[in-house]
């Protein structure tokens, strides 16, 4: 089950990675990395579920918390300097 989920997530990661690499604007890349981050977070939760380990979940908490900060900072940058 989780293996299947991982495959799905890999496809998702590929999609976002494509966006990150392809651009064309900086905002697009931010969309890409944001998505990538979400996918990694989801993947971590999936692996936590698989390995039954609660500790891994904390990682996710932090990731979600700080990921938002990065997006905001990047947005601020785009706002000031453009794409």
């Amino acid at each position, binding site marked *: 089950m989780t293996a299947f989920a991982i495959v799905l*997530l890999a496809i998702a990661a590929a999609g976002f990675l494509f966006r990150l*690499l392809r651009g064309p604007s900086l905002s697009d890349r931010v969309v890409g990395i944001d998505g990538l981050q979400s996918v*990694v977070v989801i993947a971590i939760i999936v692996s936590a579920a698989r390995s039954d380990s609660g500790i891994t979940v904390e*990682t996710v908490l932090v990731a979600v918390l700080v990921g938002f900060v*990065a997006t905001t*900072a990047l947005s601020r940058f785009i706002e000031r300097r453009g794409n």
Partner: protein
Amino acid sequence: MFFLLVLHLVVGIGITAGGRALGRQAFLVAAIAPLATVVWAASKASSVLDDRPVTDSFAWVEQLGISIDLRLDAFALVMVALVSGIGLLICVYSLGYFSHDQPGQARLAGILTLFAGSMLGVVLSDHLIALFIFWELTSITSFLLIGNGDTNARARAAAMQAIFITGAGGLAMLAGLIIIGQAGGTYRISELVLDPPSGGAVNAGLVLVLIGAFTKSAQAPFSSWLPAAMVAPTPVSAYLHSATMVKAGVYLVARLAPMFAMTGSWRTLVLVVGATTMLVGGLRALRQHDLKLLLAYGTVSQLGFMMLLFGAGEYHIAEAGIVLILAHGAFKAALFMVVGIIDHETGTRDIRELHGFGSATGWRVVKVVTVVSAASMAGLPPLFGFIAKEKALDGYLEHGDFAGGTAALVVIVLASILTFAYSARFVLGVLGVFGEPNREVMSVGAHSPSVLFAGPAVVLSIATVLFGLAPVLVDGVIEAATITLFPGSEPKPVELFAGFNTALLLSMVIIGCGVGLTLLRRPVADVQSRASAGLRAVPSTEQGYLAVLRSISVVATRVTATVQNGSLPIYLAVIVLTVTLVPLAAFASELDELPQFIETPTHVALVAVMIAAGLGACIVRHRIAAALMLGAVGYAMAGLYVAQGAPDLALTQFSIETLSTVLFVLVLRFLPRSWRHHAPAIAAPMRIAVAGAVGVAVFVFALSASNARSDVDEPSMSEVMIENSLPKGKGSNVVNVILVDFRGWDTMGEITVLLVAAIGAVSLARPGRRRDETGAPVFEEILDVGDEPKLPEALR
């Protein structure tokens, strides 16, 4: 004996440091040290001559065998007499030479005293390394003394030349001494004499030692520094560059020749070099107009003479050398003093500007001193110099039956003719014969020298005459000295007239030819200058020195400009290539099998992300975009951490990645989007090649290191850590326990690093409170020059 050295040191430093108030009286104070030495040496003379040398020793670095062993034997006694006796006279002479108080005199007096101490150390040392130590000290003090008139660029250049050449020789010599010492098992000369080592290494060592001795004693081809050193004040020239320091090389040769003259190429080398030096020096002396340079080249020639005498390693010949050392010390110092007097009173040393000095008593005395000393130099009887020459000729005639002995004799005769000629030239020059009418006349009516000024030269002349007439006065010392050098030898007595022999005949020939050469001086000069013009293509030693200096300079600039090109990318390329490629072969040799290719499909996905984003980071042009690629790699890393069972790491990775991104954005937002074009320091294909090499290397490292794990039986540290985490660390999260407890010391350091980095970053990035006219904050540190003293405009 140490008290003498310490006395010199104390007096020297005392005068240098506090002697300003003394003015020229500093030289009187300075005289204390040589005076004490002379008195002390005199008191020890009888026991020393009885073959009961005085010794003293101080172990400095025992494990290395460096100890300061002093030994006053008969030969040393001769040298001490020379060093301290002339030193004493020079001090007195300086009082006359420096007639006014000038700043810097005390410094000169102090360094002169230090030199005297060092020179004393050289001649008293019974230990090769101790000798070397004092030897180098004389080089240093000589450097300071030559450069005494430091505002004169020529003085500086001459000082540099002297220390460069003698320093180079000194280093060769150091290596040579070490080789000899290691081969002989001791550095103590008095022990080496008993059992001199031999062998290939010792031969090489001896050549090196000889190079050192040659440079110090201004032998060809290292002689160029000595004439250049004549820019020094005359007392210095008289003392260092004629009477004492330049004899250090000769002294060393004298000490070593009895042991090593038969070893390897010693004798050939010494004879060839000595002969060349003697001839070339004489020829060049003959062409000088500057009295001081004339003497300098004369000194070079005489030093070559001494090399010929001591280097042969024959005690009969060496005995002549001892006589020559003494005689030379007396007449050459006196002549230098005369030059100093003339220079000081008339302001010139050019023989074309001298027309005689009138008949003041002082000048008459000077003329007498000149004639007597020059005659001694020329080898006229009944002076001390004559005895030296006579003994030398006799020695080579009777005992020069070794290879090259006859050639040496011929050279001595030829060079002695030259010596006669330049001695005559000196005398005639002082007497005003060369004075040219179209030149400014400096000498006539010059103030006549004071008693103190002329006195020391007179004393030396008296010695020249006295020892010439009554050699028996020094006979005992010289014989004892010879026996010291050659234990068991039976030297002939020193006497003025040894009977009608071949040597006497040769002396007559020399004098006759010398007179002829002097009479024919004009045609000879013409021939010489034509020859010299023809020889211009042949590099002189001076040119050799300059070429060395120049090539050092060119090589230094080229190498530095190439290696240190100032470009960070190139530095980094060299560094990463070195670090990765050098160990590559070693690791690659162990890479015989590959581990499993893929552990889990998850890895494939994560690595794919890393690779794609990594490539993206290289390709994208936008800064932030590249930073985002890095971020993507970071997230993939976080994923990998989780996959490897390292959630704590993933957590950290997320936080750090995000923080980095934020910081990047914070900083990069200021940078212009479009930039001035800079040519890359390294072209892209080259960068790719370097990157590829690094990648391959890391790949190999990683695989062969992990293969190697199977070679080690012991468990890894972490197994113990897992066992102990709960019972001892009181924590179930092993990573946390490691960080907080087991390796808390690391964590303390890590926190410190973070804090310091934060302090640094804040202090760099924080603008000051001041604002400029547009209201923008001013970075105070950039502008703040603080309360440093206001510099003159030129220094900004």
